[in-house]
């Protein structure tokens, strides 16, 4: 199997930096490797918080 880079990396690198960071944070919140997964309510709260923080940073 060729160890070629998936197109995802190139695609993500074209996004604004704050969107890239937010994307990674949100995806990592759902990563199955987490041994102590969050409850649904906690998870939605964390996502909301991350989005608000990212939007505020852009304004600042």
């Amino acid at each position, binding site marked *: 199997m060729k160890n070629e880079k998936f197109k*995802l990396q190139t695609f993500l690198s074209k996004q604004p930096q704050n969107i890239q960071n937010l994307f990674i944070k949100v995806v990592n*919140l759902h990563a199955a490797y987490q041994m102590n997964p969050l409850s649904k309510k906690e998870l939605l709260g964390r996502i909301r918080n991350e989005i608000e923080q990212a939007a505020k940073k852009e304004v600042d």
Partner: protein
Amino acid sequence: MIFKELILKDFLSFKGLNRITFPNVSESKSSLVLVLAANNSGKTNIIRALRFLLYGDFLGHYKDPYKLINDGTLNEAKSNIEAWVQATLIDNNKPLTFRRRIQAIKVGNNYKVISNNSLDKIIHGPKGDKYETDGGRIERNLRWLVPEGLFDYFYFQGEELGRQLMEGSGKMSIEKGLSMLLHKDDWKRAIENVTAVRGKFAQDLMNLVSSNKEYQRILQSSETFKLKEKQCKDDLEKALSEKKQTERAFSDISDKIIELSKGGPSQALAELLKKRQNEWRVNSREIDNLDGRICKVTGDSKGIPFLAAAFDTAKEVLEKMQAENLLPADITEGFVERLLKRQKCICGRSLHPVADRNECKHVEEYRDRSLSADVNAGLLALLNSLETSAKHGYKKRITDIAKLLSELTVRRQQCIVKQHDLNQEIQDIEQQLSDPIFGEITKLVQKQRELSNRRLEIRNKIQGLERAMQEIKRIVADHEEKLRKLARDSDISKIKDLTQYKDYAQKIEELINASLKMLQRSFHETMQESVKEYYDRVVTDGTRAYIDPDSLLPAIMSPQGEVRKNIGGGQLQLLVLSHIISLCQLRRVLHEQLSEIGVGVGKLDDQSFFLDSIFAPADDVYAKDVANFLHGKARQVLLLLASQQWHDSVRNAIEPYVDKAYQFLYHTANPKRTEEEYIVKFKNKDIPLLKLIADNNKGNHCAYSIIKEIK
């Protein structure tokens, strides 16, 4: 998940303590452990023990789990009985040992389970081993390492896994397992949750602006158009994907047509044409040869056959002519005419001065003689001196010549008829060869035409969708501009904030969605390429491996471009193994690349494989290919083989790569076969797989196996 050791104590058919130790191998190398066992001696119980250990599965004995304990051990037990399965894994380069056990006590003639399904972590210390009951962490880790839906995938019995992969079925859908293993589930959950958060932002925004009717109207309209935009985008993605698939199928068929036109039926026709053309040449030579012979016979006859009919008359005429001093050259008008005509045989055929040199010579000789006064005089003298018997002799010669000429003429006629037929057949073949709408090619061309039409339809659909998208985007941008103005006018900073949060949520939702689709395409392309690389170069029937773009499950594609799932035997084994190996490699690449962009997935690259009876349904042709295929493809492979499958071709292919070998020594009082049939060869040594035990008059139910290393 790489094993260091697996121990079974009094579990199912294994009595006492039975241990399989795996060789240490570095990350870049692979190891092969072979287990040879007689039929019914508990090969599959190794895999069942692993299912019990990983998931606490009672293997069908939910009501009476004590049946997981070895029968002999149960019979001999006086009070407490314990059976367990223990494994040591290499987790992040450290050993992790855990054990799942089942305990029972004997009550009268029955057994009562007092503890089952408990998983303990074992901590090795200088003062002995410590047992620590798992609080769920190891269980979760194990399920993550090997999703239950993929258990059969990694620890499998050949045919069963083949069926599951082809049908996408299984205890837990294998498709779901693949989705889990490749993190697709996580990403889908992320999309759902971000959508929920966006919805909440939109709801909050709606509540805030409810007093502003105009703002609310535009916002609602904007939301509706955004939904339409999303739908339109999805449809566009689907259409683009379908376009790509159609183009790929079109290209495959084009390749096939080119391939077919190189060989196959057209080649057979070309060979037939060559054969018929050779026959035509031989026949043509035969006609020339017969012509030559007819000329020679005619020449050698010295004109006798032509005089036969006029024998008596000739005598009379010649006598008269002699009396009147005339030449006898006008016996028949046509004959004389032909006789006098240059470059013509007396039979009328045109003669070529060079090609028919010999014939010309004979004819000239005949002319000279028949037209010479000497010959005529001689002939007359001959006729005068002929006796009746001599006349008969001449007549016989004349008959012979006529008969020979007749035979040669008939043969010539036959040759000419054959030549005509050959001409016709050659023309037909040439016509077929020059005709593009022919046989299999016709079907493919027809299919290609259908695909071409479909491609055109999709292209029109895409154009329509793109136009619709542009229009929707324009309307959405217009709405947003109006909303911004209204928000400024009303000076509600909260509305501005919420609008921005909602937009951010939407961007992230779209980004995850697009990334997942991109990953799915990369998974498909990578799997397709990899499985093809392993499968296509081994199979001999012209089929190619095919991976479904959505489910990533395997199938095969016939030379006519049809996707089929109804395959079996060695071909299926090869496809399944190619799929497994490719998936593991894909997972490794995925983990490396997600780690590079900062998405945490842990390091779960390596996978062990326990393969039970993979040669049982394999065709002999493929058994060797499958055996050769195994080497070096995975870091750890345990191969469970029944003695019947350990035949010479498999043995020769596998034996050189075996790092460690074990046997199941089957203890029974009632073997099903002779003792000799339980002996297998390994590295030129006879290995007995049977040990006879004394009959305790309890039938066969106390038969058991022990695992021994073959040294």
